[in-house]
């Protein structure tokens, strides 16, 4: 390749030339093309913008940038106009002409596209004025809204690969490991194992043929979590740079190939990463003799097969080897014998993305953010930032990056804007199917690895699902257990059979067939599954059940004693009736799949409880709110 950069200095010179060619005052319109915004029509918006620019012959004066996820999914499609930084939300193709004329050409903000704070009523001119962004610390997501993820030049221009150059140009591998250890970085996939400790173990593990593997885990399977997706789609080079630095630190003189394992449901992430690898190879940042330093490392991308369990390290490695993704017992850790029985260092992609930041900022500055003291004990605290997917019954759904140690209340109310439709907060579920539900009394708890674990939940990959009084906690527990029944790989009995029995017991509760003895059985079975399962999937599977039993036992008891679902969710226990608001429009009569509704035009309809299957269609189709549910 003619473009290949053959020295650390050449990279610096290349960056300087990129920066010199760019005019920071040149107008640019950045369109968020994260999944949420794309679903709201962001790509059509991007096309419309480009078309408008072409028609007006403004190609030289204005740049249209398609970015990765900006995070504020609730208000998509999002647009930021540079250089002023004007922030627009819910932008439609019809707004394109105004954006060009008023903002780009005349430099004025457009009021109707601005975000208005629903409580204070104030208008936000720039992104940092929006409450959702104001309380965040966006280290990893900083460039998501500014660079084009398909352009390595964009990444390099904002300082990308500078950390790698610094490492290759003047640090010993041991120094890099020490740096990561001092930073206190802990595994972002959920386990929270100190990355520096893991790297050292892998580096020191004997490798007979000199082969050690590096793996990036992008198999983000937790329902309700999409931070890895946004990083892979929005800033793929950040992950890649972290992995190259890790490969250098851990060392693999034999066969310097790493893997990144990406979930099958994320085709765009696969595309963006594949392109990033190709671009990095062309520039001599990946492959043989990286930046002329004699260091070799390359990466292969594996698409997952759509199995949740493959997020578990040994299952993921089995999957890369071409087997069914079943975990193995970890008497011998993967840092000693992982992929192909060789020393393997696996980290989550968010963990890898932190590595260049640590090199750039230095361990002390990184560790200054967060909780606890990691200077002596790498388990002594949680440092840096964490990205959370804030979803469910919250006003501002989206991706949130905050320093470790912010309270749940700050995240849900200050950033998330509180609960939707003015309803009451009931619980927040963290950590996906392995996590737990935390009640209102936990709202002032700092969010970090250790506090969440002590409260019976876990960090997990960072999903945060907010629930209100319209969410049934028994139903949520049943949902997660049913999810895991399907996703259990079937290798060990406690998980495979135990979860099925737990599901039977939970179904008995939500269908009103349970007695109080059911809860005792559920608890003791939970303990068996937790203690006897082979891998973390089974060991943590009872968490949603145990945490709801601990904090919301009254809801279980209402289902059992009163045959009533307080949140009006569990179908079998619901009674549907039609009230006097009914005008006899016949819509529910026609839609009722059970033919349980009788009535004539303009006369009050009646539901026959004997025929009613509690499906809720009548309530969903009624425009007059004339169907009551109890």
């Amino acid at each position: 390749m003619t473009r290949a950069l053959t020295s650390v200095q050449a990279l610096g010179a290349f960056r300087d030339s990129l920066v010199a060619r760019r005019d920071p005052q040149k107008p640019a319109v950045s369109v968020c093309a994260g999944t949420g915004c794309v679903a709201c029509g962001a790509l059509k918006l991007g096309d419309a913008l480009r078309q408008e620019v072409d028609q007006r012959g403004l190609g030289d004066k204005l740049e249209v940038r398609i970015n990765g996820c900006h995070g504020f999914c609730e208000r998509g499609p999002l647009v930021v106009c540079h250089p002023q930084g004007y922030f627009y939300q819910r932008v439609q193709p019809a707004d394109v002409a105004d954006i060009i004329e008023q903002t780009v050409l005349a430099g004025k903000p457009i009021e109707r596209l601005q975000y208005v704070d629903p409580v204070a009523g104030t208008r936000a001119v720039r992104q940092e004025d929006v409450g959702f962004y104001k309380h965040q610390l966006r280290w990893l997501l900083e460039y998501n809204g500014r660079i084009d993820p398909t352009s390595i030049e964009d990444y390099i221009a904002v300082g990308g690969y500078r950390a790698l150059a610094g490492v290759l140009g003047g640090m010993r591998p041991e120094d890099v490991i020490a740096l990561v250890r001092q930073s206190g970085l802990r595994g972002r996939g959920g386990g929270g194992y100190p990355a520096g400790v893991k790297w050292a173990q892998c580096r020191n593990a004997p490798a007979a043929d000199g082969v050690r593997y590096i793996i990036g885990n992008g198999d983000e399977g937790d329902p309700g979590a999409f931070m890895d997706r946004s990083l892979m789609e929005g800033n793929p080079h950040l992950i890649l740079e972290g992995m190259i630095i890790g490969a250098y630190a851990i060392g693999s003189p034999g066969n310097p190939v790493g893997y990144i394992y990406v979930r099958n449901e994320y085709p765009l992430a696969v595309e963006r990463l594949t392109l990033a690898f190709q671009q990095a190879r062309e520039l001599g940042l990946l492959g043989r003799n990286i930046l002329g330093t004699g260091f070799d490392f390359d990466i292969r991308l594996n698409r997952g097969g759509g199995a949740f369990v493959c997020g578990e390290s040994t299952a993921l490695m089995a999957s890369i080897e071409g087997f069914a993704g079943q975990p193995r017992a970890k008497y011998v850790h993967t840092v000693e014998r992982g992929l192909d029985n060789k020393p393997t260092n696996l980290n989550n992609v968010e963990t890898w993305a932190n590595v260049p930041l640590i090199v750039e900022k230095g361990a002390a500055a990184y560790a200054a953010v967060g909780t606890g003291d990691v200077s002596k004990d790498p388990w002594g605290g949680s440092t840096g930032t964490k990205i959370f997917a804030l979803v469910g019954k919250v006003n501002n759904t989206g991706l949130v990056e905050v320093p470790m140690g912010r309270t749940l209340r700050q995240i849900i109310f200050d950033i998330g804007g509180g609960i939707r439709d003015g309803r009451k907060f009931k619980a927040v579920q963290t950590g996906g199917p392995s996590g737990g539900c935390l009640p209102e009394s936990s709202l002032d708890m700092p969010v970090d690895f250790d506090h969440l674990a002590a409260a019976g939940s876990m960090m997990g990959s960072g999903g945060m699902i907010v629930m209100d009084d319209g969410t049934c906690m028994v139903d949520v527990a049943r949902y997660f257990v049913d999810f895991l029944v399907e996703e259990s790989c079937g290798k060990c009995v406690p998980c495979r059979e135990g979860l099925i029995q737990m599901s039977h017991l939970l179904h008995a509760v939500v269908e009103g067939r349970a007695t109080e003895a059911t809860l005792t059985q559920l608890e003791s079975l939970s303990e068996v599954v937790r203690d006897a399962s082979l891998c973390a999937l089974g060991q943590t599977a009872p968490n949603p059940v145990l945490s709801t039993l601990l904090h919301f036992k009254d809801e279980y008891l209402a289902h059992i004693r009163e045959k009533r679902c307080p949140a009006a969710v569990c179908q079998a226990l619901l009674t549907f009736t039609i009230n006097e608001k009914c005008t006899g429009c016949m819509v529910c009569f026609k839609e009722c799949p059970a033919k349980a509704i009788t009535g004539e035009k303009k006369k009050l309809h009646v539901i026959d409880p004997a025929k009613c299957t509690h499906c809720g269609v009548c309530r969903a189709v009624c425009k007059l709110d004339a169907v009551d549910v109890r």
Partner: protein
Amino acid sequence: MTTTAQLAVDLAPLERILAAHSREQRSLIMILQDVQQEYRYLPRPALERVADAVGVSRSHVFQLATFYRAFSLKPRGKHICTVCLGTACHVRGAPRLVEHAERKAGIKASETTADLNLTLETVNCVGACALGPLVILDGDYHGNMTLAGLDKLLKGVKP
């Protein structure tokens, strides 16, 4: 025994897929993903050919084909309607959408209509939780879905 349906499978695209991958066990899942994409399911003759070409047992390939959710051993429909059942969609009522779609299409989730027009599926989160409940029809995301909206979508893909 070979049925007529199996005879109808054109194996030429399969050979192209095989040529694009190294013939080692490590490539199996990626090969099967390409086969799934090409044929919209994993036809038995293709699986047999893959096993022979890579040099693994047929049972090994069958194990992979049944273990991973991404693979289907039955032909799938021309249109794929996927209801997201991620947690965020679940708490916003996605299960009602699945039931509704099942009733309207006359099939259960993960089944295909007899005319091979529509396959109904569920997925455990696609990471677009802000838009829940979410339905994906032929790759297009439709957020904040309602029963009426789902009716409209399904009517749009009637043969």
